[in-house]
């Protein structure tokens, strides 16, 4: 079995943009969608990175002078270490595609610095307490900026993760030792999908070409939509797409070709999912699970098993000895009926 999964950032020009990749609707051609570029560092992160580099260089190259100016003489031996830390953070902020952990590392560093400055302030032997107080104020201000930027970056990261998959394009294939017509007949009856896909809770046939789908996602979210067969060639292929309403744009094609050497039928499917912007805040990951490719691949596997073997292999309900506490929380561990002792 092979499968592809990508996050096309934009539909190709000329394709029906709201539905995404054209080949799901037409033919197998272009698979060249590229994933969205990762979050680039924000200007604030870049500025803080430059500040880190400057401070780090200063602390490393002129620790004596810096400790005098900042009123931190009792701790001047610490300054080279602080310098190293700042250089690391600076390099991280300027070079990493994800600045969030580096921003938080700056917040942690600020906390350490504030502790050092505070003890300098309270140190009776410190001749430059005024300088230490000014330094404390400056560092406190920087801490506030660092904290704000860190939190902002964390939130942005979350929303990037969610919006990184506005589209899911999933394809998979399997060889089945049955004729293309038999495979086609199975797929042409939407009711059969409840037998091979655990996510499909129910399918209602509305007319010859339209059916209503109720999906329960791996995380328990329910979503309902109507789907319509848009094209079909008996024994060869079926295309479908969602019709208006519902919280999902969905389209797919499944093709049945004679496998080489009369080894049955090569079944290829390609499906496209998109959650429209603002659709009840339902991210694609919440709907399809973390890995929609494996869901589709396993559906195809069960389809093959059902057609060839007449049943889907299972261990659900078999006996086992007592599972561990962790084991009981896993899918495999929950399949069996445990012994008492």
């Amino acid at each position, binding site marked *: 079995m092979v499968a592809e999964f990508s996050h096309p950032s934009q539909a190709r020009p000329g394709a029906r943009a709201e539905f995404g990749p054209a080949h799901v609707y037409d033919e197998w051609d272009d698979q060249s969608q590229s994933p969205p570029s990762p979050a680039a560092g924000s200007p604030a992160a870049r500025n803080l990175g430059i500040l880190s580099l400057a401070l780090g260089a200063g602390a490393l190259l002129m620790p004596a002078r810096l400790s005098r100016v900042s009123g931190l003489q009792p701790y001047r031996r610490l300054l080279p270490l602080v310098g190293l830390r700042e250089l690391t953070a600076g390099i991280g902020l300027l070079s990493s595609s994800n600045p969030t952990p580096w921003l938080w590392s700056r917040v942690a560093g600020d906390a350490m610095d504030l502790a050092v400055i505070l003890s300098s302030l309270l140190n009776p032997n410190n001749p430059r307490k005024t300088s230490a107080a000014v330094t404390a104020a400056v560092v406190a201000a920087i801490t506030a900026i660092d904290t704000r930027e860190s939190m902002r970056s964390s939130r942005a990261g979350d929303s990037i993760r969610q919006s990184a998959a506005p589209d899911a394009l999933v394809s998979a294939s399997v060889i089945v030792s049955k004729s293309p017509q038999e495979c086609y007949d199975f797929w042409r009856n939407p009711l059969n999908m409840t037998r091979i896909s655990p996510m499909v809770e129910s399918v209602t046939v509305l007319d010859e070409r339209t059916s209503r789908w109720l999906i329960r996602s791996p995380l328990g979210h329910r979503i309902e939509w109507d789907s319509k067969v848009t094209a079909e060639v008996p024994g060869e292929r079926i295309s479908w797409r969602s019709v208006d309403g519902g919280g999902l744009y969905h389209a797919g094609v499944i093709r049945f070709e004679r496998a080489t050497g009369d080894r049955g039928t090569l079944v290829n499917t390609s499906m496209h999912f998109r959650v429209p912007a603002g659709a009840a805040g339902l991210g694609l990951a919440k709907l399809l699970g973390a890995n929609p490719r494996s869901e589709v691949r396993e559906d195809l596997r069960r389809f*093959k098993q059902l057609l060839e073997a007449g049943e889907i*292999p299972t*261990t659900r309900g*078999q*006996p*086992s*000895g*007592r599972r561990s506490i962790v084991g009981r929380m896993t899918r495999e561990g929950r399949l*069996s009926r445990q*012994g008492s002792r």
Partner: protein
Amino acid sequence: MKANCWNGTEDLRVEEVPDPKILNPRDAIIKITSTAICGSDLHIYDGYIPSMMKGDILGHEFMGEVVEVGPAVNNLKVGDRVVNPFPIACGRCYFCASGQFSLCENSNPNAWMAEKLWGRSPAGLFGYSHMLGGYAGGQAEYARIPFADVGPIKVPQHLSDEQVLFLSDIFPTGYMAAENCNIQPGDTVAVWGCGPVGLFAIASAFLLGAERVIAIDRFEERLRMARENCRAETLNYESTDVLEALSEMTGGRGPDSCIDAVGLEGHAHGFFGLYDRIKQSLMLATDRPTSLREAIHACRNGGTVSVPGVYGGFLDKVPFGSIVNKALTIKSGQTHVQRYLRPLLDLIEQDKIDPSFVVTHHMPLARAPEGYAMFRDKQHECIKVVLKP
């Protein structure tokens, strides 16, 4: 019912578990009359097989009496006495149709796990980790058999359990190992490991026309059995340099075929023995391929190395250069047991072989954990343990 459950490395417990039920139309339930501990079970016992879970029921060599059949099983009826093959096979996919039952595409519900480790998944097996299906095994009072219309073979009443039980695994496994050698008249076959699979490989090599079989082990009782029950010449690798001896015995040409019936827990002395143990214990290597290295090294030009021994992962320092430059053929695989059941049962009925010779110990199922320890440590000259529920 009682079942022998894995609870961790070297921690087996015979526990009270629910009775199995029919879960699919092609299932059957059998009441087990005899079940054995396989050398490959010891790899689980010693913790070398990944994806085991506490509570898993072990055992893949078992036989018994049919007590219930699913609605789609037409060839068996309640009361039939059957031996069950250890791989689970649908009988209808591309691989089953070509007799390669242990590669069935439709019997492993966790195929995706095996695909992660090996690229593709073989068939599901009884009692042999979740990666291979997570099926409850047969060291129990009852077992559920999926695809029961394809796997189990009915056996005649006049043969004892001990005579037919090993059709479930080790006899076909030794036989397939020998068959994979493509033995020609006059051939010399060397067999590493004189455990039950090695012994059946020796016997099968003779059945398939080998003229000489040289057996290699370090336990005198096993070498004795290889000599006395199977007519092999024997080498004890603790007292003999095996590579030199094999060269001398074959005029410097090497054995025509070499069978590695040892697998991933091989023992060796000297540098490589220590090296493998250290790497395996540090998890830098998954297997200790001592015997495989030797088999490849010893084999004659253009010969065949056949590997019935179980290897699971990524092997270190395997002399692939020797394979290329000597033009060797390597054959391996889990046994396609279903393919051999009928012809090997015929051999037993014709009295050409009596597989019960390997049995050294009988124990009640309740003492299974003790049986594992004895078998693993080769105490009391243990070669094969049969458990009675």
